[in-house]
């Protein structure tokens, strides 16, 4: 059997894909590889962690560069639906190793048939996150995946369940957790240095940002030959190609991303949760308003204001485009406040930020290298600093906010059962429908 799998060529793969439908096409790997064994197998254990990457349009190259710097990583393959970034990614790997050995893949399902992989780094548009990730987990791979964890709440739960089911290691690209000032701020909050928290403010960016320099290129034209656009749209509802819709700017269409709100929720809201010890829970109430474009090609909110309440009564505001809410994360307590953002860390009283955590106090998980932390956990099989459940809980506040904007009223949420309470209309928005032949593998 293993021989058959090892020798499966592209034609056989496509035939198998036709039978089993879509994601996780070939089911489970059927030979004993190092990662599937937790590296315990009869095969000689290698000290290298064999990796591949999917998606090189935005975060993918940076993530790969970080991994390539690690001596224990052997990068063997890259996968992208666009031949240009694919070639660029292969070039980076080949340059690193001084050879031409990096394999290229168009279809992630074909990549997952490789028997030598231990882990995969995924940086694709949000609407693909869950399908790719769950397929990777099912193939026995550990995953470094970008935030937000998934495109909707149902996907998030399915992904977390799959991580547990297959016993895999997951690191989310919420790298702020691995940066000193965020760690320090969250640790001070957790240790009660500003007393009981009376409120939290999370400031996120507003508007739409032209990452790709393609704003205005909205004419519907045939997709370029280097991009498999049909595959790129994949499970999302169909939108015809235009240049401003794809690379780097897909985020402004809610069928592919979630705007600034969902892009940043996995950073500053994630830090807010960390400080509060809410990594495995969520709000109990949420209400939201948003401002949406009425022309152009994008439909994600440009300005928004979200109010959440947690089980202990703590209120939180998340906002984009509201100057009174500072960018970053601000905890307001009985005795002062702590505010942290990229490159910024201020407290009231000011001396608070120089305090250290005492020998008997709570120490939060510490990492100063997000990618190294993932690799360390691949070896130890331990939890990373940003595991799937944590990322799901951060993203869940975003998803609930989007639903609250859609229904226009306060939503009640049970974070334990992950159910919307008493609002069947809002419940309809917990998941998306998928275009054939794609479906959530679960």
């Amino acid at each position, binding site marked *: *059997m293993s021989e058959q799998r090892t020798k499966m060529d592209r034609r056989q793969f496509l035939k*198998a894909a036709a*039978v*089993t*439908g879509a994601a996780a096409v*070939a*089911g*489970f*790997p*059927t030979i*004993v590889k*190092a990662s599937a064994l*937790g*590296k*315990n*197998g*009869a095969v000689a*254990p290698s000290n290298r962690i064999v990796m591949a990457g999917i998606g090189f349009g935005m975060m993918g190259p940076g993530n790969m560069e970080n991994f390539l710097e690690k001596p224990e990583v052997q990068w063997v393959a890259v996968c992208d639906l666009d031949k240009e970034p694919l070639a660029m990614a292969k070039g980076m790997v080949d340059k690193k190793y001084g050879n031409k050995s990096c394999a290229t893949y168009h279809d992630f399902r074909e990549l997952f048939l490789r028997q030598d992989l231990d882990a995969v780094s995924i940086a694709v548009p949000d609407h693909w996150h869950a399908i790719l990730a769950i397929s990777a987990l*099912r*193939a026995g791979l550990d995953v470094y995946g970008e935030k937000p964890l998934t495109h909707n709440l149902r996907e998030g739960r399915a992904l977390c*369940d799959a991580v*547990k*089911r*297959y*016993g895999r290691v997951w690191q989310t690209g919420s790298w702020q957790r691995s940066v000193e000032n965020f760690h320090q701020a969250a640790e001070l909050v957790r240790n009660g240095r500003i007393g009981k928290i009376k409120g939290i403010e999370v400031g996120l960016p507003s508007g739409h940002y032209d990452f790709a320099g393609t704003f205005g290129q909205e004419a*519907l034209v045939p997709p370029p030959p280097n991009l498999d656009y049909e595959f790129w749209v994949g499970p999302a*509802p169909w939108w*015809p190609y235009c240049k401003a819709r794809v690379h780097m700017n897909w985020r402004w269409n809610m069928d592919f991303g979630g705007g600034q709100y969902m892009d940043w929720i996995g950073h500053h809201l994630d830090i807010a949760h960390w400080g509060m010890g809410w990594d495995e829970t969520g709000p109990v109430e949420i209400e939201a*308003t948003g*401002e*949406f*474009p*009425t*022309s*152009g*090609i994008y439909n994600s909110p*440009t*300005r928004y204001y979200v109010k959440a309440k947690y089980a202990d009564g703590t209120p939180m505001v998340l906002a984009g485009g509201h100057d009174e809410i500072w960018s970053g994360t601000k905890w307001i307590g009985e005795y002062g406040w702590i505010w942290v953002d990229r490159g910024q860390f201020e407290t009231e009283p*000011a001396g608070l930020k120089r305090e250290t955590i005492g*020998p*008997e106090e709570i120490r939060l998980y*510490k990492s100063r290298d997000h990618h190294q932390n993932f690799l*360390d956990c691949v*070896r*130890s*099989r*331990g939890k990373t600093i940003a595991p799937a459940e944590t990322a799901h809980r951060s993203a869940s506040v975003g998803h609930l906010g989007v639903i609250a904007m*859609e229904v*226009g*009223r306060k939503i009640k949420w049970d974070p334990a059962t992950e159910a919307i309470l008493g609002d069947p*209309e809002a419940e*309809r*928005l917990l*998941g998306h*429908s998928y275009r*054939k*032949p794609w*479906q959530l*593998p*679960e």
Partner: protein
Amino acid sequence: MKMTRQPIVIAALLILVSSLLSASPGTPQSQPQRQGMGLVYDSLDAILKDLQTYDYSAGVGALMRLHAYVFIHKDDPQSRKETEAALLKFVQGSPAPGGMMAACRALRLIGGPDSVPVLAALVLKPETTDPARFALERIPGGEAGQALLAALDKTQGDIRRGIVFSLGERKSPASVPALARLVGGKDPVIAADAIKALGKTGGPEAVRALGEELGRSRPALKAEAVSALLLAAERAVKAGDRNAAVIVYDRVFRTADSPVARQAAFRGLLTRAADGDIRIIETLSGKDAVLYAPALAAVPDYFGASDIGRVADLMDRLPEESRVQLTALLAKYPAETVRPYLLAAAESPSLNVRLAALRSIAEAGDGKSVVFLATKAARTTGAEQDAAREALARLKGLDVDAAVLEHLTKTADDAVKAELVQAASVRRVAGAKPALMDLVKAGSPALKTRAAAALRSIAGQADIPGLLDLLGGLDDETAREAMEDTVASVARTNPRELARAGEVGARLTAEKDAKKRTDLLRVLGKIGDDSSLSLVRAAQADRDPAIVDAAVRALADWPTIAARDDVLNVARTSLVLNHRVLAMRAYVRMIGLEPYRSPEGAAADLLKALALAPRLEEKKLVLGLLARFPCVTALKTAESLLSDPAVAAEAKLAADRIRRALK
């Protein structure tokens, strides 16, 4: 583009709902266009007219108008019903695909039983099947599920696949018999889809149908069935029926070909198992290496502090990767219980095991781990040394600080002592201050430097005189520099900015010894208390070149812009090249300290700097900063250097950036 968009203010829409509804009771289709607060509310007729031929080329306008319309009208029962009726009429009128999708999305949110017959008809047609089933997937009640089930028998190929997907999404037990029939059918594609849908649905009937597939000889479908059974078993666990789940897990465990699936099933079997501890020990004592990882992962669920030794005793028989995993999970246990195992692992031939051990000691260790870790840090390099130091920093408990202090004075090994000095600093062990001061006085040169640096995190304002005394007694240049930094760092913690240099300034005024005066001047520069600037300026006129040198360096270090004119003056007038270079670099740095000043003003200052730049390096420095102040002067300055081959590349980069910013 962003500027041209008119935002829909949903909050405003909410406010307007009541007035809109009262203005048009009962007939949303005939509602006229309204304007208010910059928003346009079309009648539904007008919106649907645009959507009839919608081909995406006109952007999202029509879609967002429908979105807003539904948002406004969905909460009033009558209005919602009329909107639904209008949408149903619309979807039966063969709209363009984009319009059909938009309308079905709306029905997905507000559709009820009335929508089902219409959507049921549309789901049968290739061009409308997807939008129709997307809506049917979400409409509550049995009617929508029944409609999808009924459509199964009337469709083939891709349309049928989509219906199977949607049945899987609805997870209704009523779908199970029909899906089970498809699993047993001849079409392997539909069978695979039905298997997935059954897994999502779960329940005894679904499990039975999936179990039958395991007995058939269709490998690709068997893999799908295994995956679906794992899912169904999880559903049973969540529903509280662990016994049913165990039967499924056991079957998958026995029949699955894939190690990943067997591991998953084994993990399921271990969940809340009465004999979990026995199974784990048996597994780790056995030869089935595939199961070591899930068995070890479950250890914390079954073994407490009193019996973790039963697992840890198996350490030596496990392969390296499992030893890493086991060593890592020992971090969850009290130090007394796991210390021998962790200490042994920390001496393992495998670096990965050693690193895991040090990380576990960081979490599980106590005061008794201090000497071990300090020695480890002193005797190793690279990742292992980092891990040992990190563990020393993170160990919990007051006894750890006491142990650091005790051994800091006791140990005779300078390398170990140096690690303890660092630990005392990182942990801010206040009681270590006297010992550190003693080391500054009487330690080896390396220890003096390290102790001087360590005091930075422990000393307070009241210690400044003592620290200055220590500084005066230091001969070693590196140690002196470390102590200067420490004094300045402690002084800067004074919240009164203009009182920070008080003690240092007073000593400088009274000090006659030239060497000590140079030290104090350098400290003043590092503190940057603007009230002490006059002392530094005065020192520039000293007859002793060493004092002048120290004064220039103090000015060059000055952290605020108060010394900007002083450094510019040095750059203009000093006869010493080193001083001109230091001053020029400081001047450019100080211009950068004011990012919000007028670009023209900053650019003019940079122009001055350029004219005085003593070397090529400083010219490049100026060009690097120029683009941060985009203005005509900056642009002209950059362009003027384009013809200078020595800096043309930097000039071009700056000019390009400035041009972009000025656009």
